[in-house]
């Protein structure tokens, strides 16, 4: 009878510990998923702005069709990547795809900015200025939300790889989540390279 009781007690304690670890992991996972939703909202806002931007610019620069087509294409690719990523935030492949698609889009937009410098009329256009401001704040919001996402992914990964959490994580399929890396500066850094 006594050994049975002891075994039962040990099992009880283990079960309770497992449950609390499982709950903690679920909470951490929910947190980074919610954080991704934040990025997603702002990314989509940006994707919605880009066609407006292209439409406004089109009237001024007839000779820069390629640049505009490039921006639109990059935007569509990024949109597709974002859709895939929001279905599965933290999944390494999706994060990598979104990160590189976003970096490409930033690069394309950076190129567009350089070209626009050559059109003083365009720079004077009021709706253009407000659109650009809107783009800039949206990018800031994305960067801010991305920091929140990466922080919560990191704390999930740390929580997941600790012992004994890793046992629970392994048996209930809590996979390691991946950070989202976007190189926003690339477009601007490349800007001076354009030949004169």
């Amino acid at each position: 009878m006594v050994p049975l009781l002891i075994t039962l007690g040990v099992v009880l304690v283990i079960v309770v510990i497992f449950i609390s670890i499982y709950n903690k992991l679920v909470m951490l996972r929910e947190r980074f998923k919610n954080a991704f939703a934040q990025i997603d909202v702002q990314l989509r806002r940006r994707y919605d702005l880009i066609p407006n931007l292209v439409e406004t610019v089109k009237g001024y620069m007839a000779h820069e069709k390629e640049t505009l087509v490039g921006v639109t294409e990059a935007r569509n690719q990024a949109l597709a990547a974002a859709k895939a990523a929001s279905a599965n935030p933290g999944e390494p492949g999706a994060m990598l795809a979104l990160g590189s698609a976003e970096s490409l889009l930033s690069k394309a937009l950076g190129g567009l900015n350089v070209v626009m410098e050559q059109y003083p009329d365009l720079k004077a256009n009021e709706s253009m200025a407000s659109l650009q401001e809107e783009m800039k704040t949206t990018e800031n919001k994305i960067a801010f939300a991305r920091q929140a996402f990466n922080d919560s992914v990191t704390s999930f990964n740390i929580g997941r790889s600790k012992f004994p959490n890793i046992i629970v994580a392994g048996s209930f399929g809590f996979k390691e989540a991946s950070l989202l890396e976007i190189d926003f500066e690339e477009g601007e850094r490349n800007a001076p390279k354009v030949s004169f």
Partner: protein
Amino acid sequence: MNFFEQQDQARRTTSRLVFFFILAVIGIMTALYFLFVAIFHASAETSETGKQIIEDPSLWDPNVFFGVLIGTVAVVGIASLAKIAQLSSGGAAVAEMMGGRKIDPGTTDLQERILLNVVEEMSIASGVPVPVVYVIEEDGINAFAAGYSQDDAAVAVTRGCLNLLNRDELQGVIAHEFSHVFNGDMRLNIRLIGILAGILVIGLTGGWLLRMAFYSSHSYSRKKENNGLALAGIGLALMAIGYIGVFFGNLIKAAVSRQREFLADASAVQYTRQPDGIANALRKIGGSVYGSEVNTRAASECSHMFFANALKARSFSGLLATHPPLEERIRRVDPGWNGEYPVIEQSAVQPAMATAGAAGLTGAESAPAPPVYGLEDSYTLAPGTESVQAAVAGLSTDSTIKVDADAVVSQVGTPTQQHLDYGRQILASVSADLTEAAHVPMTAVAVVYGLLLDTEEEPVRTVQLQALKNQSNPAVYKALLTLKADILDLNPRARLPLLEICVPALRQLADTQAQRLFENVEVLIRADQKISMFEYSLHKILKRRMEAKLSKASKSTIRFKSHKALIPEYNVLLSALAYVGHDDANQADAAFLAGAMTLMNKIGKVLGRLPKEECTFAAIDKAIDKLALASPKIKQLIIDAAAHTALADGTVTIEEAELLRAIADTLNCPIPPFLPAGA
């Protein structure tokens, strides 16, 4: 019955539930005990093949008894605790379990925006933190509130609600759900689910044994067939015992739930003062082809949490129905109902919703000429510093709010139509840019910084801005600069409500970002070397809201049931309130006495006013935190006394209102905002 009595009753109901639960477990154990004694006797007979006649016919077998006792307690206990732990990780967890999708605070979808506005108005009107809002993609009209405390509450509505209900009806439904939040029903609900899960496990174990027996009798040799048969017998018996337990558990759950539903309907009418909203929502459920069905798997477990019956009607639904019949609910709200349901066509309703919603989006216009509570003096203000100063001074002296102190306690947790109109006006008085900013994490941080900027002294503001420039995120700083003028221009009454609107967005900050927010908030508060009442209240409320996110749900344990240990805290609290609103020493004394008398009459102890130097913010803070652990009955007395002190001269200054809000908030007693005079 007021808020405090409701809370008390919810607690009593909980203890009654625990009693029933223990009764059920004892019943189960007795049944199991007899089952096992019978089995052992039977197996003893068969193993000795009749040689051994039952020597000891007594039914007492201590080994079996303790085995059953420990086994049952362990199994039922673990299952119950696990379920409760899972659910008490917050309302959000429950909403997600039910297949809810979180609505982003900054959503641009019109329907979702309207829903968020309705929820925010209700929050401001009642003084409860803005809950997280979820939408469930189901065509039925239904909703629920979940969470362990007001601080981590979540409200979810179905897509059917958004598609089919107009703004008034939606408001009725949301008011119903808020009543569950006020009345402590959410915690009750979670415990009910946990208890039922525990009892259910017995039945599930039985089912599992039965299946084992079934498989083993197929795959093993015939020798074991007897064993298999015995196993099947035990399984069957366990299942029977378990499911009978669940049946009675459901009976209890349904009985409790039906009562709370009537209460919530009545409260919804009380809050909105228009029975049509909720009555029409209920009628539309009757008229819609989808009714109030919710088909997610988890819905059956949580059926009692919903606005209306979430499950398909069953034959014996009378006893087990978690909700009173629709007809009865409608008749209680609207006695003159002709018994007809409207015919709902899914497509035809949407445009009506859109127009009602469009009006709702622009704010106060949608209400049929609501009374105006002295808010528009701020509209006409020029953005210059002097005029803002004048406005602040004017509001805090001349147009202070006149309230009847005796009414405050009865108002806790019961906002009225006036409060709702007031909430709507407060929201409408905030500029569109600010409202949008408050809903996005990054700019919400900027709004909080902006609220802390000194409205009166330019040099202090310069110091504050310089500090932020060095220490905060550059993008946040930039957002702050664009929002600064709007924030400084804000009506003083809209300042704390604006903070509340920011909270859902702020809760999405990463821990590092939240930490930085608090560091900067403290820097901003200290910039002028002194703490104002607004700064204290903002810090206190913000900290509480964010703690609910960082740590788990705040456990509201009751540590103090008698007044003895709380006398010093009463003194600090009432003295501080007396000094805040009354500069003159005599007036302060009179104010202190006004509050102290109401307490002294009830508790038979003497209270004494403290000197002004002892009423530091640190002392107030400590006092409030300790008082938060008192029982609802004591809290009622505290709020009553505090109200009498603050209202001794018949008016509430902005500072008094801010301190009262911080007190009530920490005590978890949502006070509706004080309505300006002339209402």
